[in-house]
């Protein structure tokens, strides 16, 4: 399976410089990307919005402007750290409500799929912090390794190592339980 990766472009880390959008629209677009990222870490939209808002306030207090090259990585890093340190206030969104069934999908299979995704979500939350950030940025935010390395302040090879290890762990932990007769559940 392949999936589309976004082309490497550091301009996306400087929202005001994204062509075709006004500065304000570009900033809002960037904010939404951060919220989507935070939701993938904590699974609650209200809390994610709050965390992103806190990150923007921190950026202002540290005088990190949206036009600077370090702004994008710094914001992703801060949102990631705030999300990992976040003490959950609200329940995570139930995946059954948000996992859309494919056209003509059997309802029983849809429920089973939701349970499988729930196992995967739990397994991701159990990963060490750096593996968790790396796998979410790579496989869910679909960032390239160079951008993830700048966000995590690591070398690309170190990021690859975290993603590799996270994949191995998730394949083991999130796999559906085997039935006694050996058939897959």
């Amino acid at each position, binding site marked *: 399976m392949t999936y589309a990766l976004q082309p490497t472009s550091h301009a996306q880390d400087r929202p005001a410089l994204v062509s075709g959008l006004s500065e304000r629209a570009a900033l809002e677009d960037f904010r939404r990307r951060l919220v989507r990222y935070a939701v*993938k870490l904590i*699974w609650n*939209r209200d809390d994610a919005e709050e965390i992103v808002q806190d990150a923007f306030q921190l950026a202002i207090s540290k005088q990190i402007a949206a036009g600077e090259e370090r702004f994008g990585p710094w914001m992703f890093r801060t949102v990631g750290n705030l999300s990992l340190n976040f003490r959950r206030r609200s329940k995570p969104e139930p995946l059954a409500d948000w996992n859309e069934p494919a056209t003509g999908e059997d309802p029983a299979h849809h429920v089973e*799929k939701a349970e499988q995704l729930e196992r995967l979500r739990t397994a991701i939350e159990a990963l060490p912090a750096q593996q968790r950030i790396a796998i979410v940025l790579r496989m869910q935010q679909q960032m390239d390794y160079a951008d993830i390395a700048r966000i995590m302040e690591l070398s690309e090879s170190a990021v690859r190592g975290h993603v590799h290890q996270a*994949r191995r762990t998730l*394949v083991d932990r999130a796999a559906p339980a085997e039935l006694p007769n050996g058939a897959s559940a």
Partner: protein
Amino acid sequence: MTPCQDIQSRMDDWLDDLLAPNERDQIEAHLTTCRECREFFDAHRVLAADLLALSQAADRIVAAPRGPEQTAVRWLRGWRAAAAVLLAVGTLIAAMQFARSSRSPQLVEHISEGPGAVIEVAEIEPPVAIPESRPVIDVGANRMPVRMETQNPRIHLVWIYDRPSAPTDPAEAESNDDNNPGATFMNEQSLEENLSR
């Protein structure tokens, strides 16, 4: 390194679509003949698909329209919630002050309504000075004001009634001696406990 180890070591690049076409073809050809490697790659393929499905679910959560209630709840989070609580408390205090200033002295509550002593807590604005040396005993109402230190700033006057009981049990009648009404009064500590309830 065995052929299988070599193939599996390239799984990450294969998943990340970073392999050259000929390398991809080589792996695909190996997977058709090696069950172990095929299962290994299939497991990671399923993982990638599930991670993508999880990501799409998260994107739907963010993209879902928000109702006015959700917006209000969100607005009331964090420092805004603290500000709203402070505003509400301030408004409540102001309303209580207004209500206090606009009403006459009135009974707040009765405590220990049983036979014997009745303690009536009254709120009076402005506070009435109670003589310390010679308590004013309201003979007609059979009550006496006492000075009480309580935790409640609203309480300015506490009346203690002596209400004779009408016991039916002779033993109880003996214990409730009318000549000694203070015997059934609460001590100051228990009175304070009742007032602070």
